[in-house]
């Protein structure tokens, strides 16, 4: 039980309400896309129809990487990023670090893509932004992540915006906790027989209270990520290194050892990857070689947390021989409080520390957060309905964003499935989203009422979910037997999830319509 004086409770209620109403719609957009992005990898596999399951790091690409290093201009051998791209192809990005005209640190070099037989299927000069940006294969998952991370607003403003939204969520979570006079009672109070406003407030309270710790963790880690590079790094570099960001990065992320610029063969990568997979129990998600072609070259592999662990693992190798050097903390050369705290931010935010199980829990809690934000906005509006009838536009906006945004994302997925075979998905995915959003906004403005529009949106979303698996098959995606034969159950699981959710939503709308003979019973009472 929390005992806050009446005056402070009133203030906290105001802070809770206004933090939600001022930034709630944008926050909702960030949380919805973040919830979907928990399964970004799986959505990428499902949408692109990837059926390969063997990691690119488990294949012997070492000799080809060494050859590519020899043919790449020496100025780009400062560092090499290795990562999976497409259907378990290997991306190899030889680069050096530069400062662009705007003073931002960038990586510039040559990018290669190797297929499963180590053939070079793509080769081009590139910057890090181009290498790690959207491709035709991952346009949908990349779009989801980009929306969540920066709402497509250019850097650094997008990150600053989502950072501020994270702080607003932190404020809403803490003030929500403080205004609960009977926290434990509220967790179980759901008065079904009460008036709709009271019943809906109970639902908001129950969902909000259960997901309170999660909201706090998400808001804290999310704002940490947003402010880390935009505000934190430049200011800490200024305070401790006179503004030299590279020196800060070298201290925090650098590898141990003395410089040795003598040329050396880089024949240890295959051995290092095999050893890393054995030690970590899983293939790396990313690897980096620094000082490629030199005697002091080091290879670092990055892995998801091991079973029962929370912090991701990284292993350090001599790149020339593949000899294991040490288990390396993600941050710093030795384990430390700061390094560990910073390292667990990522699994805490993304929920990827225990595979599909933790991702499922994070998805569910993210969904609960969406519900809490949406119902919170509705409650705020209902309380002011009597005193301010001019809030109809806000009521419509809440419906357009709350129910229209998920539908726009479903339409975007359909656009991806249609345009990927044409190799135009990178252009059409964001364009499709904008067009769908505009259409839904216009429809929301002219529809007879916000409640009627909400009912229509639920029905359309259900139908869109039912249509997506069919569209995936029609546009050349692998069938269930092909996916299961290739040990790729993700495709089948996502198809089933869409069919079940879509079927339930459609049945709710149409069933209610058929049962009552009228279509205004079901979805959104004013207080929902």
């Amino acid at each position, binding site marked *: 039980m929390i005992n*806050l004086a009446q*005056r*402070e409770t009133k*203030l*906290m209620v105001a*802070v809770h309400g206004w933090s939600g109403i001022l930034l709630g719609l944008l926050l909702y957009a960030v949380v919805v896309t973040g919830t979907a992005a928990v399964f970004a990898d799986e959505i990428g596999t499902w949408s692109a129809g990837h059926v390969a399951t063997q990691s690119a790091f488990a294949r012997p690409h070492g000799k080809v990487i060494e050859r590519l290093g020899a043919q790449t201009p020496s100025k780009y051998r400062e560092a090499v990023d290795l990562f999976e791209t497409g259907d378990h192809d290997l991306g190899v990005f030889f680069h050096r670090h530069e400062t662009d005209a705007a003073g931002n640190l960038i990586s510039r070099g040559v990018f290669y893509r190797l297929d499963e037989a180590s053939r070079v299927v793509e080769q081009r000069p590139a910057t890090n932004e181009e290498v790690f940006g959207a491709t035709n294969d991952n346009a949908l998952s990349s779009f989801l992540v980009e929306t969540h991370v920066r709402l497509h607003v250019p850097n650094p403003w997008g990150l600053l915006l989502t950072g501020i939204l*994270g*702080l607003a969520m*932190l*404020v809403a979570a*803490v003030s929500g906790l403080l205004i609960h006079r009977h926290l434990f009672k509220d967790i179980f109070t759901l008065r079904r027989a009460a008036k709709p406003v009271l019943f809906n407030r109970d639902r908001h309270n129950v969902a909000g209270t259960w997901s309170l710790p999660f909201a706090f963790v998400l*808001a*804290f880690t999310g*704002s*940490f990520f947003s*402010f*880390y590079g935009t*505000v*934190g*790094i430049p*200011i*800490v570099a*200024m*305070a*401790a*290194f*006179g*503004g*030299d960001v590279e*020196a*800060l990065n*070298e*201290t*925090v992320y650098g590898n141990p050892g003395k410089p040795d610029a003598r040329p050396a063969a880089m024949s240890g990568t295959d051995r290092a990857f095999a050893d890393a997979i054995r030690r970590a129990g899983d293939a790396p998600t990313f690897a980096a070689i620094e000082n490629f072609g030199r005697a002091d070259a080091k290879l670092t592999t990055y892995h998801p947390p091991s079973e029962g662990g929370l912090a991701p693992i990284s292993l350090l190798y001599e790149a020339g021989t593949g000899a294991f050097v040490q288990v390396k*903390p993600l*941050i*710093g*050369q*030795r*384990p*430390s*409080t*700061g*390094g560990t*705290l*910073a390292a667990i*931010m990522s699994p805490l935010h993304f929920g990827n520390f225990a595979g599909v199980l933790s991702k499922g829990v994070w998805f569910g809690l993210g969904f609960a957060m969406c519900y809490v934000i949406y119902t919170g906005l509705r409650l705020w509006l209902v309380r002011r309905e009597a005193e301010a009838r001019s809030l109809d536009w806000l009521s419509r906006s809440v419906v357009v964003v709350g129910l229209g945004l998920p539908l726009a994302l479903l339409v975007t997925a359909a656009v991806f499935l249609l345009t990927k075979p044409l190799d135009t998905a990178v252009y059409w995915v964001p364009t499709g989203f904008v067009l769908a959003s505009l259409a839904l906004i216009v429809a929301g403005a002219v529809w007879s009422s916000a409640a009627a529009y909400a009912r229509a949106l639920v029905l359309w979303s259900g139908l869109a979910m039912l249509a997506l698996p069919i569209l995936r098959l029609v546009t050349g995606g692998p069938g269930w037997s092909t996916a299961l034969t290739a040990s790729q159950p993700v495709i089948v699981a996502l198809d089933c999830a869409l069919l079940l959710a879509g079927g339930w939503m459609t049945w709710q709308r149409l069933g209610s319509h058929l049962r009552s003979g009228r279509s205004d019973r079901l979805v959104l009472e004013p207080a929902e």
Partner: protein
Amino acid sequence: MQPTARRWTRVALAGPGAIVTAVVMMAGMTQWLPSGTAGIDNLVLPLVLLPILWAALFFHACLDRRLGRVAIVAGGLLLVHAGLLAYAFTAGHPTAVKEKGR
């Protein structure tokens, strides 16, 4: 102080005041936090703690009835950390750390 003036002072302390103080504290903490076994705690912990610092200052400004105490706490933290930074710059500490970092 008039109620309206008190309200706006509180808003200023909880809004821009909390942001400025949290950012200056983050920078200043690099000067006094122990660097730890890996030599990075003083650099990484302030980055991690920034949202918490801001939230603590924000809620203190909202909930403490004594506005003077809010101003003293936030102002004191701001001055101490700004002073540490000013000392580090005038004594050339950032350059020294830079050399060590390399």
